[in-house]
């Protein structure tokens, strides 16, 4: 059983001064699955991402990723070991081109050193060519082929979201964390995105964890859903289970509404 888990976070508590942003949350992600983390605003979802990716060190708890402990390792090291993410507020490298953005995330995989770069050794040139080709291919994969030489900040909003995914994929991740990937998308785009998430998992074998507010997307993609409220896990299960869970309905709609909806 243990080997089937790509990520195993146990009893995570994250305390900022007097505020417990995450309170004793245990969370696992099976290999090759698509799971979602949902909850009202301020429930601690993004904080949880930040703990997993090494930006925050939790007050208590442990995280095991791909068989190795994650805590106390710097973010770039965790990223290099196969955990890639996108951001709720897009964080691209604005005045770099789309291709360059993608190539930045290939950093851990490119082997050329400073000397071979200065001397432009054939090996380094071949590696750069290959990296550029991979970037092109990734941009096509996420559906923004041909934008290679455009500056990231000049791309339309939707393309920027896609570019973030392409950049994350360049890390060759085992686990892809998507932080509200469909924020600002219209229903058609969201539907297309749902299909895309499945493609990423099925074609590339990448496990996916997403934070999402659009329930259509969540129900259409996630095989397993975890619900947070005020930093605590209040429910988990399949889409159907979550939909009918009293606690979840209360969290989203308030106590009075619970009876009405059910």
């Amino acid at each position, binding site marked *: 059983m243990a080997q089937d888990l790509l990520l195993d976070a146990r009893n995570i508590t994250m305390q900022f001064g007097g505020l417990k942003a995450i309170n004793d949350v245990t969370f696992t992600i099976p290999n090759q699955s698509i799971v979602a983390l949902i909850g009202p605003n301020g429930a601690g979802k993004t904080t949880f991402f930040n703990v997993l990716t090494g930006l925050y060190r939790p007050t208590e708890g442990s995280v095991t990723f791909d068989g190795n402990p994650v805590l106390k390792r*710097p973010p770039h090291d965790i990223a290099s070991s196969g955990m890639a993410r996108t951001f709720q507020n897009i964080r691209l490298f*604005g*005045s770099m081109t789309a291709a360059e953005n993608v*190539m*930045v995330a290939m*950093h851990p995989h490119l082997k050329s050193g400073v000397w071979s*770069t200065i001397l432009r050794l054939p090996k380094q040139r071949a590696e750069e060519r290959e990296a550029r080709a991979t970037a092109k291919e990734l941009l096509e994969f996420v559906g923004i082929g041909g934008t290679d030489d455009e500056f990231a900040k000049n791309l339309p909003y939707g393309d920027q979201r896609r570019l973030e995914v392409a950049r994350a994929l360049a*890390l060759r991740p085992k686990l892809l964390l998507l932080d509200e990937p469909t924020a600002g998308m219209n229903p058609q785009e969201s539907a297309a995105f749902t299909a895309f998430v499945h493609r990423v998992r099925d074609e590339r074998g990448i496990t996916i964890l997403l934070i999402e507010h659009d329930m259509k997307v969540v129900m259409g993609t996630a095989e397993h859903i975890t619900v947070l409220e005020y930093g605590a896990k209040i429910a988990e299960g399949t889409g159907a289970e979550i939909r009918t869970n009293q606690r979840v309905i209360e969290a989203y709609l308030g106590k009075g509404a619970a009876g009405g909806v059910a």
Partner: protein
Amino acid sequence: MLLSVISLAIFVLVGGYMAAVRKVAPPKAALVGVLATLTAVLPHLGFVKSPTSFFPLFTVVLCAVYALFALGLNIVVGYAGLLDLGYVAFFLFGAYAGGWFMSDFLVNVNEDISVRVLSPASKLIPGVHLSFWMVFIIAGVIAAIAGVIIGAPTLRLKSDYLALVTLGFGELLYEVFRNGDDVFGINLTNGTKGIGPLDNIGSGPLNYIPGFDKILLVGASPAKYYIIVGICALFVWVSLKLRSGKLGRAWMAIREDELAASLMGVPLMKTKLWSYAIGAIAGGVGGAFYATIVGTVNVDNFTFSFSIIILCAVILGGMGNVWGVILGAVAITWVNYTGLTWVGEKLGVKPSSFWSPKKWEFALFGLVLVLMMLFRPDGFLPAARAKQVKKAEASTLAAQAGAA
């Protein structure tokens, strides 16, 4: 006559190469040809030879040294976006390396010391006298190590905090070297008296070029001009190659968004330390070279204002663009060392007068900086990237306006 023939040959070769092989537009190719020719024959032009002209050889060589400093700082500030206000530290280490290994000074540390490697210094002078070319490498290595040592604790800080701490480090080193004449009884820096005189230097491998002086005296000479221009050219090459490679992308990513860069697998400390170390090498080599042209190493050369002047050169010229920062460094150095005095003379103002331009130096600097920020915030020659981003942005806005 010979000079004109050589000039023409260089112009035709460089301009022709740019136009035919690199497919550059003819006017631009011609401009590159003119600049290359000028750089090549500069020390042989009449006005440069005359010590009282508006651009004498000594100032020309200093301009090249400052260009090297600016190229070094450009890697740190322009490429990696780390605001370093203590660049003087690397200049200082380089210059003292020159002082230690090219004079009789180290006798103060050990009376019996007498090392001589490929140096034209007289056998009668004790102390350590290494070949200038070796000192170069040593100065670069010392500065790079200093860069890593200073960088390791400071580079964890961001933006303004980094600027303040680097400023502090620069000032701290100044005090250490100023008071370094008694480190547990050992005189390491000769304190405020400074180290000197420095050796004349051998021209090393350049010995074999006809017409090249075998021994280069302290001070400026055409041979020294070619050496420093060669080093600058090497550094331009290194800058351009690194910028377009893996490390350059990582630097730019850190400049744009440090947090996102680290989450994309870019090791922040290592990448920043590389920029510091490579920038420091330019500072160290430039420092050692500077010592051989002024002939002494005096701690009062290593004040905060040096860091600011180099930073101004980088900002005025165009952060991130090697040609821009060279232009910025040349302009500032010229104004600083010759320009203002020369203008004063032309205007017939006595140097002691209240209206002497030299006295208004910093006011003018400030004014120019403010004007630049208002009218040309990206510098004389902005980085190609900044220009393109602006252009593309404007066209996107126009398209949006058109659609609406």
